[in-house]
């Protein structure tokens, strides 16, 4: 089975400095592979290990500045290739930086068509930095494929379909979907493998292809359509920040309960 895994270089939100009321300093924060996308890569590789085929990772660079992000993207690609992907296709273009999810999906669809065919596309259900969860669904629509998100398990049967175990609302479901299809995975599906030294060294020899939008025959994102981010501001966290220190646990407990009662919480 030929599987494509979608990988986003997400902003490392843990390392992001944010001052309330100001814009978080996204240019200074590093990017790394979004964690849930690593689950998608792991699943893709384990499917190939079970049934054969290939794994190609696709990524569209979304954060600038491109000069800095390219280096991080190469590191990210190395990690994904070391996990067992066979090749990495990176769409890097100034015009795609900051593009909305519709454009990202269109770019991915073009890259998938150019380097396909694929039987299955796997992606994380969301990314740490945005958690919109929109790109896989948009991509499925763009390709005209069925879309099954939130997979906690994927079982590859014969006969051109896979079974997806997932939970939505108050129900657990097993969904059978015909291929080709787009599936998003949760963090529950597996534990991404940590590559070994040899695997990282060998990853350096695997193909990393960098494509521009014109390589894909795509114009830049058109004006007046979709979503434009006009500002990002850190929320003012209005937490009281009272630290309760006391001689004994009993005293601390009494002080806490008193504070909560006074605040009308209990």
């Amino acid at each position: 089975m030929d599987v494509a895994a979608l990988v986003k270089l997400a902003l490392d939100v843990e390392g992001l400095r944010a001052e309330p009321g100001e814009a978080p300093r996204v240019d200074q924060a590093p990017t790394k592979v979004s964690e849930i996308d690593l689950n998608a890569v792991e699943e893709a590789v384990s499917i190939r290990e079970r049934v054969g085929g290939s794994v190609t990772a696709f990524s569209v660079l979304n954060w600038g500045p491109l000069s800095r992000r390219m280096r991080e993207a190469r590191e990210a690609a190395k990690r994904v290739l070391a996990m067992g992907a066979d090749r990495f296709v990176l769409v890097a273009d100034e015009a795609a930086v900051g593009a909305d999810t519709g454009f990202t999906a269109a770019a991915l669809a073009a890259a998938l068509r150019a380097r396909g065919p694929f039987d299955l596309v796997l992606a994380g259900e969301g990314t740490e930095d945005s958690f919109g969860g929109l790109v896989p669904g948009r991509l499925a629509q763009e390709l005209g494929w069925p879309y099954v998100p939130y997979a906690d398990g994927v079982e590859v049967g014969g006969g051109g379909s896979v079974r997806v175990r997932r939970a939505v609302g108050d129900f657990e479901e097993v969904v059978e979907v015909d291929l080709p299809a787009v599936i998003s995975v949760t963090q529950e599906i597996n534990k991404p493998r940590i590559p070994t030294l040899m695997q990282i060294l060998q990853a350096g020899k695997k193909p990393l292809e960098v494509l521009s939008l014109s390589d894909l025959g795509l114009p830049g994102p058109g004006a007046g359509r979709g979503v434009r981010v006009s500002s990002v501001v850190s929320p003012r966290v209005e937490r009281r920040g009272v630290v309760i220190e006391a001689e004994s646990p009993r005293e601390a407990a009494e002080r806490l309960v008193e504070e909560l009662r006074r605040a009308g919480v209990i």
Partner: protein
Amino acid sequence: MTRALVFSPDDDRCLELISAASVATGGGLDGVDLLLAGPAGEERLRTPSSTGVGRIVVAEWSDPTDAFSVDRALRAWIGRERPDYVLLTSDRIGRQVAGGLAQLLGGGASTEVVGLESAGGSLTVKRMVLGGKGIASEEVDTPAVLAIQPGRFPPAEASGTAGGAAEVVRLEDPGADHRVRIVERRPRERSGVRLEDAEVVVVAGRGFERREDLRLAFELAEALGGAVGATRPLVADLGWLPGSDWIGISGVRISPRLMVAVGVSGQMQFLAGALDSKVIVAVNKDPNAPIVGASDYAVVADLYEFLPALIEVLRGGR
């Protein structure tokens, strides 16, 4: 007239979305249509109808808890009417269908929306990004799909005019997409109260050393009249609690009156799922743990000493 279509699997949330839709359309509800999945008798129609929405679209054959069948109903209506806005709840069903619908409409989409502002014919959407470290303002062109976080808008109320004015439209089943088949379906196992609905949530983190020690968290929850949740490692890595009970950006999002985080360090992925808690209490040994800075009240103490004392005080014991 700007037109909007509203859908939520939960009828109460529908009323919130109707309020949100009135902001998107610029005030009036005439252009707002409500999709109800499943059988809708007079009883079910009464409240939404009295809000003043334009039309109520009933897809009797659709199951509001089945995302694929909801998707089918939404597509049937959208393909025919091409509304300017589609408003959904930002839950798993809403997020599942939002992307595809937006691409179908050839428009924008935003999920996890926390606020809407309409000015001069353009709509600005506020949404939580960067793991809760940022609120993005996004200008959205029509058509657009907006998935709105629960509890962000007041429920629409009955309008002054005579109730039951909304036109009811029956939507035919366009037929299933046979490429996707649900072969098994059963209610999820839960350990008690739904965390999403709980007024008080006690969250257990890695500070608990053994599974049996969670007893302290359950006792505290009982004394406070609340539910117990956990951070991801306790559920996913250690399996101490069932899968529905971990709190975080990709797990359950909670918005209780009071959250007591016990032995929780306060990683971003967790905090982003609990930001809407009205009051946060942290119990942690480490005064430098991020949770301490993100809390209203922090008790720097060993949970094994502090929780028994707290439980006793709450129970009024001496």
